[in-house]
């Protein structure tokens, strides 16, 4: 059975043929010629029917392909941008039935803003006569919320060269986009965790109150931390150990290895200390050897290694004993000659081979000498031409600024690295520790008291400072300076009591007074919350505010104030008042 052809053209042909050439049923007796013509006509008719069936089949095949494509496909009429085709994937993805879509435009079912976006793209495709790719477009769906599509729009041009249709093919990339966002968030989180490990486990505050040495440290974390670490151990008042290390690799694994290595050093030190004869210190090489024996196997198994420099400063004898295990060369600025020497040992990094025997190097130091420890992140900083910052440039920087305060020196180094690389951020962590050997003088007078964290103790604290300063050996501190110290200690103490201890009155604050020939130093130690003076706004001097003067008053009353955490984990405030007529300092 063949049905009547659908297209009007074919229908017209069919009808014309039917009329002119009667079918066999109403055939009349005829001559041979007519018979022949009829047969010919029948053949034509059959051929046409076959062709029609073929076309039908091809069309339904294409329909079926378009319908079942796993991507969304629509066709719009170029004249009015109304949908003329809408496949099943469109129906499913957008929750809009073809019956609702065909003959309508975007404005009929998408929010105004989205519809305008789609239509603007359509116009661009049609006027440009070229395919346009839209990597990401937002679309509000009926049941699945906001989805993101990757869409390609193609113009279909008629025989006359004008666009007839616009074909759109879209892929739902919402899941992919979410996965990418998830991944980016996870990466961000890794950086954040790494940064926290670094700040809490890898880097220590340099000690501030070891007489005879001044230490400053700097870290500029990179996007991915790389396990640089440093640590300081103060032995009595005359010995300071500095450990700096760098773990191979990056990210959280490197940070954790750094933290583990660091804790092995602390463990090795305390074990050897407990075994050492009273009053003697274990040698750096023994500490390194013990720590190495603990970590070597693990590092080898993890196929990682750690470069370390363990340096001990004896401030009484003014010497440095250090064990260098493959770390960057330590720069020794010699104050008396103004030159730099590179100190480097022969030991292998930790984790290269087990059973390593560590060599120790001994160096004599003088006042004003500076030792600079750093990670290769600093020397391997590159400029735009790809050159390394290098040890030479670093040593030159130290030679030039070696007489500045260590904090200042380190800042100059940072500036130099930033200027060289023309960037505030670095590919590797940049760590740097500067140690300056200073005149080691003992205070001529020292006194300490404990007060409780009760505001009623303020008067007693002032009396302690006043009495101490009036009875200094040699000459008393002048009365104006004493008044200023009384003011400073009152402000600092009431800050500690009200803020650091939050008004608890049963806590202890230790007050110390050290008097030197040229200055008096007040130190307050407490276990309350640390105070960050940089977060305090400048006071108002116009009488509109009752408070907020404390920090300002302290700064104005003394010559130097420092807030830091000491080696026992106590928060400290030290305030220095220079004496008016400095006597010549004995050396």
């Amino acid at each position, binding site marked *: 059975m063949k049905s009547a052809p659908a297209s009007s053209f074919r229908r017209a042909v069919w009808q014309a043929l039917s009329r002119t050439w009667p079918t066999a049923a109403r055939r009349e007796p005829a001559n041979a010629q007519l018979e022949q013509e009829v047969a010919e006509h029948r053949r034509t008719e059959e051929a046409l029917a076959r062709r029609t069936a073929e076309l039908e089949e091809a069309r339904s095949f294409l329909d079926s392909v378009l319908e079942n494509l796993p991507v969304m496909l629509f066709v719009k009429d170029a004249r009015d941008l109304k949908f003329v085709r809408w496949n099943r994937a469109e129906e499913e993805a957008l929750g809009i039935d073809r019956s609702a879509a065909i003959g309508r435009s975007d404005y009929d079912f998408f929010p105004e803003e989205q519809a305008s976006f789609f239509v603007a793209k359509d116009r661009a495709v049609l006027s440009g006569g070229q395919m346009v790719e839209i990597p990401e477009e937002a679309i509000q769906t009926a049941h699945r919320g906001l989805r993101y599509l990757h869409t390609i729009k193609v113009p279909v041009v008629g025989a006359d060269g004008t666009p007839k249709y616009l074909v759109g093919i879209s892929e739902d990339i919402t899941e992919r986009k979410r996965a990418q966002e998830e991944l980016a968030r996870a990466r961000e989180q890794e950086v954040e965790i790494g940064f926290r490990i670094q700040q809490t486990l890898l880097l220590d505050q340099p000690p501030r109150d070891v007489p005879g040495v001044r230490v400053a440290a700097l870290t500029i974390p990179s996007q991915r931390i790389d396990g640089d670490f440093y640590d300081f151990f103060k032995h009595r008042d005359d010995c300071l150990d500095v450990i700096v290390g760098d773990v191979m690799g990056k990210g959280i694994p490197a940070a954790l290895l750094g933290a583990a290595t660091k804790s092995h050093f602390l463990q090795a030190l305390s074990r050897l200390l407990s075994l050492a004869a009273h009053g003697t210190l274990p040698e750096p090489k023994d500490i390194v050897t013990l720590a190495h024996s603990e970590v070597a196997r693990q590092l080898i198994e993890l196929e990682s290694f750690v470069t370390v420099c363990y340096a001990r400063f004896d401030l009484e004898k003014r010497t440095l004993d250090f064990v260098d295990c493959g770390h960057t060369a330590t720069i020794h600025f010699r104050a008396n000659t103004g030159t730099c020497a590179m100190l480097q040992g022969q030991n292998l990094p930790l984790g290269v081979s087990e059973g390593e025997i560590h060599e120790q190097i001994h160096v004599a130091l003088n006042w004003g000498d500076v030792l600079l420890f750093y990670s290769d992140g600093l020397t391997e900083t590159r400029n735009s031409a790809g050159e390394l910052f290098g040890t030479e440039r670093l040593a030159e920087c130290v030679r030039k600024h070696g007489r500045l305060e260590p904090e200042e020196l380190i800042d100059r180094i940072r500036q130099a690295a930033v200027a060289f690389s023309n960037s505030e951020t670095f590919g590797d962590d940049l760590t740097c520790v500067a140690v300056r050997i200073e005149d080691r003088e003992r205070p001529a007078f020292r006194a300490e008291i404990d007060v409780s964290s009760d505001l009623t103790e303020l008067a007693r604290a002032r009396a302690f400072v006043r009495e101490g300063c009036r009875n200094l050996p040699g000459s008393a501190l002048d009365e104006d300076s004493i008044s200023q110290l009384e003011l400073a200690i*009152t402000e600092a103490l009431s800050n500690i009591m009200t803020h650091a201890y939050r008004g608890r009155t049963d806590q202890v604050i230790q007050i110390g007074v050290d008097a030197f020939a040229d200055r008096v130093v007040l130190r307050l130690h407490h276990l309350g919350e640390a105070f960050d003076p940089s977060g305090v706004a400048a006071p108002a001097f116009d009488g509109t505010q009752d408070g907020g003067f404390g920090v300002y008053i302290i700064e104005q009353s003394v010559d130097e104030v420092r807030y830091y955490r000491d080696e026992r984990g106590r928060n400290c405030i030290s305030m220095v008042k220079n004496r008016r007529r400095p006597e010549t300092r004995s050396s």
Partner: protein
Amino acid sequence: MELTTEKVGDVVVVILPGEHLDASNAKEFKRDVALLLEPRGKVVFDLAGLSFVDSSGLGAFLSSLRQLNATGGDLKLCGMTKPVRALFELVRMHKIFEICGTKDDAIRSFTR
């Protein structure tokens, strides 16, 4: 806090008790002196007995000054010892308060 006052004409003189006004007693002073400050009051704080004032004490003075100024009154300070004067200068409060030498100077300055 026991506050001694003295009335000379329409001027009220408050004599600061104790030798210090700091974080341990400034709150109490601020609270108690506020009760003595009347609208449009002419008030003098006599600081002759005070050898020490900290930022909390200063805050109490500022609070009293603002309370009086808000009602058309005024506050003058007198009898400052050297360390107290030094604190006022340190935070530039000598420009905010009218500071007189003696109690009599302060009382006279109200009748001028």
